[in-house]
């Protein structure tokens, strides 16, 4: 820990850190200048591949490998989409980058376009970030003025146009093919795959989609090299051939019941407890943590006993969570009702389900209604099994949906009920003493407002 020096947040906190002048004064765009002069696109791709950089958007797919999926010798155009539709509850690291150090992101995006031979880049920004919009747009304008964007960048034969596109605020637009549909001006219904975006994406052309923080990491890999990047983080588990290792610095968003919530940079593999204690100043009000969300609510829940789980790409999965996700840790203290937590989570996913696939559209809405009934004092023990059945049957993993939104909706249900079943049962017994064990179908309720 002591030797770790933040790089992604290095400029954050300086005056006018969002301007080109300040960014360049700390070495900004030198990596771009050097790369365009000295490296071929294939070299840069190899460099990123060698760094083992894994996407920071949530799934953790190796970025360099993703780039190599693009068809070779494609006549073009190839598109680059920077996914700035940061909507996972609890997550705000992209926002810090875009507002405080947008040039770091843009330099990474230009480098990534160079590596993938993309000639047009779109930054898909969620509507709720007006500050990011202003800063990013100003930064893009500065880059055009300085010759970092446009025709023949820095005298090379590489040209790139970058556009900032604001979405209309929907969680599903952060799913990569939903983002593409939205960018094309359509309803953001994720596409069926294959074809994958690398083969046929935006406007039916090969497309790369990367997260904002991934772009910032590319900047630092180009600046400091792959070895530096691999010196940080957790190496691959030799016993698990599918583990590609978790390298590099990571921005952790810490929120919830801690003394000092915020966005902190740490090497991948820091444990949840270290994050809470060392950065967050511990759980607030001298209470104890009851549970924590490891990486946005779609990843599930860690119990208090599981807080020593390392927050790298494979750590949360070992204790039954979906994965690292966006590394947004939300701490719940001992006063929080897990029933309320799950209700909130179900409300979010029922609201954000795009409505394309039947199991997700109906499953998320149904689970919300059950939790509403439960909280209204009419829960039954049988509901828990039904909720688990819904949780186990929706999602891309059992194969019942097109995209992963349903997995994200299912994991909090599965984790909360399996890890806190006693609490659910106590709640139901206490609030519905006369009907908790009835198993006949519940008489139909007038719909409770949930939208």
């Amino acid at each position: 820990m002591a030797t770790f020096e933040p790089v992604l947040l290095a400029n954050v906190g300086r005056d006018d850190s969002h301007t080109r002048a300040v960014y360049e004064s700390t070495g900004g765009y030198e990596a771009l200048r050097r790369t365009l002069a000295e490296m071929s696109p294939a070299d840069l791709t190899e460099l990123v591949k060698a760094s083992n950089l894994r996407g920071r958007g949530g799934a953790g797919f190796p970025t360099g490998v993703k780039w190599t999926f693009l068809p070779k010798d494609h006549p073009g155009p190839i598109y680059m989409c920077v996914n700035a539709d940061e909507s996972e509850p609890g997550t705000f690291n992209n926002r810090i980058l875009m507002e405080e150090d947008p040039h770091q992101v843009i330099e990474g995006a230009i480098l990534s376009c160079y590596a993938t031979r993309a000639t047009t880049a779109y930054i898909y920004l969620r509507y709720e970030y007006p500050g990011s919009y202003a800063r990013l747009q100003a930064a893009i304008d500065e880059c055009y003025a300085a010759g970092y964007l446009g025709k023949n960048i820095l005298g090379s034969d590489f040209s790139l146009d970058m556009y900032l596109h604001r979405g209309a605020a929907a969680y599903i637009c952060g799913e990569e093919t939903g983002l593409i549909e939205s960018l094309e001006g359509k309803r953001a219904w994720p596409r069926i795959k294959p074809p994958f975006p690398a083969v046929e994406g935006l406007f039916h052309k090969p497309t790369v989609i990367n997260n904002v923080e991934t772009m910032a990491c590319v900047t630092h890999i180009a600046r400091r090299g792959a070895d530096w990047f691999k010196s940080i983080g957790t190496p691959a588990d030799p016993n698990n051939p599918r583990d590609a290792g978790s390298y590099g610095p990571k921005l952790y968003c810490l929120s919830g019941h801690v003394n000092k919530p915020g966005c902190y940079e740490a090497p991948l593999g820091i444990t949840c407890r270290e994050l809470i204690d060392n950065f967050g100043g511990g759980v607030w009000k001298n209470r104890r943590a009851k549970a924590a969300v490891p990486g946005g609510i779609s990843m599930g829940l860690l119990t208090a006993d599981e807080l020593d789980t390392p927050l790298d790409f494979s750590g949360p999965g070992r204790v039954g969570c979906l994965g690292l996700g966006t590394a947004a840790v939300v701490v719940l203290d001992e006063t929080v009702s897990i029933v309320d937590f799950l209700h909130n989570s179900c409300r979010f996913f029922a609201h954000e389900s795009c409505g394309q696939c039947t199991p997700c559209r109906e499953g998320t809405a149904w689970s919300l209604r059950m939790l509403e009934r439960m909280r209204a004092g009419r829960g039954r023990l049988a509901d828990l099994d039904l909720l688990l059945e819904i949780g186990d049957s929706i999602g891309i993993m059992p194969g019942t949906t097109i995209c992963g939104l349903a997995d994200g909706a299912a994991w909090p249900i599965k984790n909360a009920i399996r890890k806190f079943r006693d609490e659910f049962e106590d709640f139901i017994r206490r609030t519905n003493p006369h009907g908790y064990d009835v198993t006949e179908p519940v008489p139909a309720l007038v719909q409770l407002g949930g939208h």
Partner: protein
Amino acid sequence: MARVIIDSVEIEIGDDERLNGIQAAARAGIDIPRYCWHPGLSVVASCRMCLVETGTRNVETGDVVMLPKLVPACQTPARDGTVFITQSDKVQHSRAMVEEDLLIDHPIDCPICDKAGECYLQDYYFKYGHGGRRADVRPFTSRRRDVGPTVTLFTDRCVMCTRCVRFTREISGTSELMVRDRGAHEEIDIFSGFPLENKLAGNVVDICPVGALGDKDFLYQQRVWFMKRHEAVCTGCSTGCSIYVEENQDRVYRLKPRENEHVNQWWMCDEGRYGYHYVHSPKRVVGAQRRVETSEENGDNVPAYENVEWQPILDDLQARLAKAGRLAAVFSPHLTVEEAYLLAKLVHGVDAEATLAIGPVPVVGEDESYPNGFTIRAEKCPNHRGLQLVLSHFTDRVLAFDQFLEELPNIDVGATWVTGGYPQPWIDEASASRFDEVPLLIMQDIFASPLWERASYRLPGVAFAARPGSYVNHRDRLQTADWAIRPPAGARVEGSVYWQMLGMSGLYRPQRVLDEIAATVPAFAMAAGPLPSVGVDLRLNQFAEAATAAASETGDHC
């Protein structure tokens, strides 16, 4: 040749065929349930009803490796070695869950729903659903809203398969329908002020797997299980869409398109779909009549008609026809090939020099083509092409109607046989007056007209739904229609009149006539034998014949 295994049934599919799991399973006789997939529309794989297990068989070792998760059969291509499992517990559980999900908000108002009886949701629930209802939500009510002049939407019955939305985007190209809102609240809707108003709009009702989209013309008219469907051909234009006529007790309730990849694929236009009402018009003429010779003595020239039974009137007609002298006949393009052949044969048998003319061919506007190639033809009759082919067998000189009207005064005909059968008025007073000098005018029609008033014999005919026989569309495809309803009392199928007057025994059998045509008229050689329901392309034979003719350098009248 790719080998695909579906539930241990192994089938072979051709190298040039691209089938998905649903289509491959259908070849093996296995039905995979689905809502959103339709062969004529793009694949969205969103209803998740067609989920199956799939895997690959190693060609060399024969080992099968299955995927751990379920996949939508509609989106999974059937390749060499592909294995589909459609009946496992995992698949059945997934189907039951989808059925349960779809019924959470569904009003389950089958007793008042037109779709009941042919509803995918009903059928699949009985087949794949698990009995009880576990959802704790009172289903929505049957909210209904208009989406266009012919189509109405029962919002809560919808299962969001988006077939209709894709239809308006991909087939009609008009994009009126869209999905509104998100998640479980989403609904099909139109943009305010832009109703579903295109000439293919009725098809969205056909492709709706549930009762969400209702046809206003058919709404609450008939339970589907009371109706019988008959294979037929639409007579609205010279495209000649393959259709079903659905009737109950001799009343037509609706027309539905019948799949025919050579003509209309899965679609038909609204002009054809809603154009059948004239069949049951109270203005139809019925009852055979003979004109009574009026005496000139009192100067009273008002024609008078007496009702005569069909048998005596035809005997009488036959006798008068035999001594009438020169004959002429006007063939309506609504007659079938068989009828045209029989009438031509009848007239030719009496007078080998008889003048044969084709009745008015209605042309309205211009051909209208849609993005997928579906075309509504301007020529609003089904058998113009068929008449040309049949009549040119009997004479080198087939007259158009205008020509015929011009030449009529010069022919000195003894009798003229005119057939009508048009849904709309087809002859005006001025044209009809050209027939004033015709001593013996035989009329077959379904509505009164200026010419009907001048007829010596009035023989009421039938409309398309009662008429069996074949039509040749503008691309020389011959298709055969069944009769769906019986003619109204007092009317007779035109063909049966000719059949009887030609002395043929028994009931009118168009198939026997068509066999005779195929044997004697070279252009119809392809029509021999039992025909497939999609019809045959007569040109196949003509190409061969043209090649032969070119080779032998001999001119032939065909």
